[in-house]
């Protein structure tokens, strides 16, 4: 038994956790910014897919991975702006719009991909991001190779967590975001533009979703396939709730989910297939649903979530 544990818990395993957690951390932070401003973005699943596609396409035509990342981020911002246009400017119902954005962007991703690359028996791939060991730090035993010998996008995700917490809790803009998410009427009275702040938060969220998509198609799989996102957007929705709309907790939730996912992959590989791997994949969703029931007593969700704001209406 201990041999099995040794096989499972090794440096490669820790590195795998970090890699699995990276796109989830980006997506979760993105969704969190949007929701903290009061806008549920169910478009996340489709936005990530479209960004993975545009990023991959830009990278494979330009030969520059960073141009690909830029394309993915811009796509995410554009789709965020679209979702905000519907839900913030027009005040349409957020959940139905989100499903609309997901259907639209995933359809568009498939359509454009097929148009650009045609139907090929072997899907085109690119030479994706290579690991970038950080001098000195990567020499730390165990932790070094696991955390500091990763893709550049992984470091960006690690830095994004404290940055997101700083922006949300320590900057005037972050305060505005929290205000328009909790009490838009009060924010409006205090001179904060609810519409503008929500737009900015949803667009920032879209940019982060773009990074998540970029990571999937340019660092993890190095190709765009129709299953490249496969529910990771929905996982992010769950992780935001599970992480109580807080950057640290949400990122922690992403790490926890990545741990379970990595464990599941290892157990499958090592032939310990007594438990179906789907049981592990189900866990974050079940945990979140249970957590929602438990947390419901001390309402931690942004109070104005799902509520459109129209100044003239009371």
């Amino acid at each position: 038994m201990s041999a099995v544990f040794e096989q499972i818990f090794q440096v490669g395993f820790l590195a795998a956790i970090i890699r699995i957690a990276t796109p989830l951390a980006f997506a979760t932070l993105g969704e969190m910014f949007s929701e903290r401003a009061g806008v549920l973005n169910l478009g996340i699943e489709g936005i990530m897919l479209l960004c993975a596609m545009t990023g991959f396409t830009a990278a494979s035509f330009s030969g520059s991975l960073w141009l690909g990342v830029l394309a993915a981020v811009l796509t995410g911002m554009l789709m965020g702006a679209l979702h905000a246009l519907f839900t913030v400017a027009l005040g349409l119902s957020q959940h139905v719009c989100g499903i609309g954005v997901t259907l639209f962007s995933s359809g568009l991703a498939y359509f454009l991909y097929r148009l650009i690359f045609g139907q090929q028996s072997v899907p085109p791939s690119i030479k994706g991001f290579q690991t970038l060991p950080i001098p000195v730090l990567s020499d730390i035993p165990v932790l070094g190779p696991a955390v500091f010998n990763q893709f550049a996008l992984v470091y960006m995700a690690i830095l994004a967590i404290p940055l997101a917490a700083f922006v949300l809790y320590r900057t005037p803009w972050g305060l505005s975001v929290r205000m328009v998410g909790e009490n838009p009427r009060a924010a409006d009275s205090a001179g904060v533009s609810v519409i503008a702040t929500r737009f900015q938060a949803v667009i920032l969220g879209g940019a982060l979703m773009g990074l998540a998509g970029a990571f999937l198609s340019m660092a993890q799989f190095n190709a765009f396939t129709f299953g490249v996102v496969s529910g990771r957007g929905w996982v992010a929705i769950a992780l935001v709730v599970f992480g109580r709309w807080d950057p640290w907790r949400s990122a922690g939730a992403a790490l926890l989910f990545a741990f379970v996912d990595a464990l599941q992959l290892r157990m499958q590989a090592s032939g310990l297939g007594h438990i179906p791997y789907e049981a592990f994949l189900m866990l974050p969703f079940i945990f979140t649903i249970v957590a929602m029931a438990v947390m419901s007593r001390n309402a931690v969700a942004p109070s104005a979530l799902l509520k459109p704001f129209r100044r003239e209406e009371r």
Partner: protein
Amino acid sequence: MFRLEVRPSTPAWFNLALPLLAIAATLVLCSGLIALAGAGVFESYGVMFTASLGDSYAITETLVRAAPMIFTGLAVAVAFRAKFWNIGAEGQLLAGAVASCFVGAIPMPGPLAMLSMAIAGAAAGAAVALVPATLRVKFKVDDVVSSLLLNSVIYYALMALIEGPWKDSFSGYPISPPIEDSANFPVLIEGTRLHLGVIVALIAAPLIWFLIVRTTLGFRIRVTGENPEAARYGGIHVERVLISTALLSGALAGLAGVGEVGGVHFQVMSDISPGYGYSGIVVAMLARLNPLGVVPAAVFLAAVMTGAEAMSRATGVPAFLSDVIQGTALLAMLVALLFTAYRIRRVGAVP
């Protein structure tokens, strides 16, 4: 400067005009993609139309495709009427498919088998929908997120079944064993795939309309959705209405899965639903949550899906255009719905 102004009432012709307007806007917007693919816009839409509604065989194919979306559309329409935000029709459909496939594999006389499949599928769908409804009623848990997340739970449960204990030992593929031949829904027109379930779907729509518009439960559902406070003052047990709505909605979505198992696939596989549950949201919104409108809305989406494949073969435009049309139609309809509540007025700039 323009602004939105609250509209006191909406003219009746809006009900028909808005979806048509949304669909027209969708087709115009998506024609840009056809042009991008280098094909003729009218030619492509023409092929799409003839391949889906041009002859009687094509019409039967479109109806077969529409049937599950009629059921999920009704499921969403009923739920949204009560403002029970059921985004989980996809999972409820899958649960219905699994339950009916399980029952359908038990040897029984045909009619009994089909009836048991329908009951089992509806019950499974209802059971899944009961979860978000109960959580909302008992714990005030947001039903949008909980019903959405349940889709993933059900999907992985299905995958665990067909890759594990349920795996078809005969083929070795991750698909369930087939249902008994006697449980296969009868085909109504020789040489087509038009099965009994399609007719049941077409009958279900007016029945649900009757239920919503003419019965006490329907009245309670509508009042609960429109004004829960007034409903409570009027002596309506709002929580109980929400639970009943969820059961009805889930059962309808479950029946969508039953039809796919009994009439189309005769077994369960991972891609048994290409997102029919989410399409149900598009259908219900296009129908303005009117059960009678669900049928033409579902037929429209089904025609787009069936037609897109033929269009792709004829013009080279990727068939994924149908997915874009679906998403665009939903967004266009939401914008169109603004005109029911608001009208655009010019303000200011007057000397």
